[in-house]
């Protein structure tokens, strides 16, 4: 099985409403990624597409519509899909394209154009619920995450002000990111005084809706060595989908993220994630989600994430920087694209090319994670400057 490296990345600006169509956004990101790897579309053997619900665009078979923008014309082209986790799943899909030995170079493109959904993209999420048991209640996403946030706070006795620190940190980190939609310097007080959307979720607890696209280029070891002297290796991948019956499980802990993380750590040969992961991009569509996911990723003990946040461990200059990119709270959340943006951020951090966002101490290994569906799916990629250690470990 060939080892797989990331050799190029590109991300468009994230914004509330872009003038470009989804095809054009895909094209821009794909072009940026190809340029950064010094390649043209001719060199690409296969294309993987990631994009979340068709309902945003009102387009059936959105993957087919986007394919020429993403460079899939005349090539093996496949769209993988795990809801909000798609952004980190698409590179996993690209990984198995290359690791299978069938392809040497694979382009992974993730696009989301939420603004075409009128009057507000949240409307598309009304159709994600079970048509018999849930939709008659008229739930929306903010409503179910308010439940989850409440459960998390109640279980561990966490205060809103502990959680708000995440929003403050990420929006500030985004000040250094040129693609960011909502970079700002705010205080905990600002978060606590912002408009209540569905208690305890307030305006500044949640990421915005966005348009944007991101792309990366994956290559087998043989090709990667020829094209770059700074390949970033995919050391481990993991994904896990929990039951559809989200109402039957305890929402205080994302066990599906733990499953996915354990799979990725096993593949990467990571035994002590707290020590061995140097920089992390957990999925943060809501501020409490970053904390939730840090725990699920076994990067801190259960219920302990607010403490390490307050201690500054997750600051950019802390021991384990989390969301140095600014995350979704700061950069925006074009669903699939934001997950791939996190992969790109770790790519830049490990290469030492993150500019003002660079975390100190030459990180050796990083992790990007996304989450999606009805509090259901975790997708994890462990990346490093060294090749993966544990060869041939089977998934469990």
């Amino acid at each position: 099985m060939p080892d797989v490296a990331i050799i190029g990345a590109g991300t468009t600006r994230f914004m509330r409403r872009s003038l470009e169509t989804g095809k054009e956004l895909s094209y821009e990101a794909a072009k940026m990624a190809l340029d950064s790897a010094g390649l043209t579309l001719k060199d690409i053997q296969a294309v993987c597409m990631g994009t979340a619900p068709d309902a945003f665009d009102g387009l059936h078979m959105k993957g087919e519509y986007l394919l020429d923008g993403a460079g899939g014309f005349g090539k093996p082209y496949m769209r993988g899909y795990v809801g909000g986790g798609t952004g980190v799943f698409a590179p996993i899909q690209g990984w198995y394209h290359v690791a299978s030995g069938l392809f040497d170079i694979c382009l992974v493109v993730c696009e989301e154009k939420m603004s075409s959904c009128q009057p507000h993209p949240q409307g598309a999420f009304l159709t994600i619920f079970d048509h018999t048991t849930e939709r008659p209640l008229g739930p929306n996403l903010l409503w179910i995450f308010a439940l989850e946030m409440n459960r998390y706070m109640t279980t561990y006795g966490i205060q809103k002000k502990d959680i708000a620190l995440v929003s403050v940190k990420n929006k500030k980190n985004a000040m250094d990111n040129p693609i960011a939609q909502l970079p700002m310097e705010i205080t905990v007080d600002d978060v606590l005084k912002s408009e209540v959307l569905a208690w305890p979720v307030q305006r500044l607890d949640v990421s915005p809706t966005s348009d944007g696209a991101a792309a990366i280029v994956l290559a087998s070891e043989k090709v990667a060595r020829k094209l770059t002297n700074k390949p970033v290796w995919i050391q481990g991948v993991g994904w896990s989908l929990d039951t559809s019956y989200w109402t039957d499980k305890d929402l205080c802990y994302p066990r599906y993220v733990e499953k996915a993380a354990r799979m990725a750590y096993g593949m990467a040969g990571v035994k002590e994630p707290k020590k061995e992961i140097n920089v992390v991009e957990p999925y943060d569509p809501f501020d409490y989600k970053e904390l939730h996911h840090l725990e699920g990723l076994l990067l801190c003990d259960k219920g302990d994430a607010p403490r390490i946040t307050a201690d500054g461990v997750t600051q950019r200059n802390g021991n384990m920087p989390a969301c140095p990119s600014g995350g979704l709270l700061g950069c925006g959340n074009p669903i699939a694209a934001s997950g791939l943006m996190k992969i790109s951020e770790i790519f830049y951090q490990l290469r030492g090319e993150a500019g003002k966002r660079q975390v100190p101490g030459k990180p050796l290994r990083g992790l990007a994670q996304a989450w999606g569906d009805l509090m259901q799916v975790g997708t994890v990629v462990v990346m490093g400057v060294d090749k993966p250690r544990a060869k041939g470990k089977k998934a469990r």
Partner: protein
Amino acid sequence: MTKSNSHKVGIIGVGYTPSTPLSPSRSYKEMVFDAAVRAYCDAGIEFSEIQSFVSCSEDFLEGTSIFDEYTPDQLGAALKPVHTISADGIFGVAAAYMQILTGRFDIIAVEAHSKASNIVDIEEIDSLALDPIYNRPLGLNPHFILGLEMARFCHETKTSPEDCARVVVKNRRNALDHPFAPFASNLSIKDVARSPVISEPLRELDVARHSDGACVVVLSSASAAKKMKKYPVWITGVGWSSDAPSLETREWGRPLYAELAGAMAFKMAGMKNPRKAIDFLEIDDTASYKELQHLEALGMCRRGEAKTLLRRGETQRDGSMPVNPSGGSLGLGHLLEATGLYRVAEACEQLRGFAGRRQVKGAKSGLVMSWRGIPATSGAVAVLEI
């Protein structure tokens, strides 16, 4: 692309529910559960032994956004690696195939289903796949694309609408020998020619009608199959590809996606002369002319020659190159994203010699091919051998 990966991945179990135009008493979850139980029994495994799952679906066909939310439970896949491929089942087989080749997985299940009878207006859904700026304002029934394409194909290859009608007659007669084919019937060319026009020259009987069903296929690595003492149907080649999605820039007479997907699969299978190496084909015939078009694109005959083979009876079940001995989509029904997976299951039964009255004698290798439907230009191919 590296050379032959043959005989590393095989199919050890298939299960499906009977294709049926209506299924008011059962939900898609129940149908998928049934298909999964049959496939797992066929493979002789417990669901807990499966390491990864692939499901194939499109949101709009399910009426639910982020449909992959609803895939794990009925497969016994909760808290396992599960992902959706938004495409036909053969794409799902390709995804599972690649995962096994990485060496990280041994057993993977692929699922696809159709609950077409739940869709109030399937043509409206199809029209939502048209470009929202350039094509949708025309307000045309999406079948116009099939009509235009059929006209172009017939013109370029000097194929007549009667030849296309022959495909319908052949496939729906083949379906008479299938225990579950809802559209089996003994038609004549005249019956097809007399059916109402949908979009000239396409007629009502030229188009496969929709049907409900679920299908699950279990793939295994060669080493695991050996350990379990299984005799898999080997997947020796897969291929998938896409042509231009826009109506304005695609080539109307030639399905480029099928040419590229076929070439990729044959190369992988190490088949220099697929015409000789393939014993039977289960290929997309969601519209009658598509069978002929795909046959040529896959390199099974020269351009314009498919109609001749058909007229000579070569593509009959007892001919030299049986095409759609199951009855195809025209006989079994158009099973949405499960279309290709049903045909994979069908090909496995042929290769195992369990196809009963529809058995192709001495079948050792088969080719399965699917197309994603109007207005898509994506297709996938799998080469199966025993």
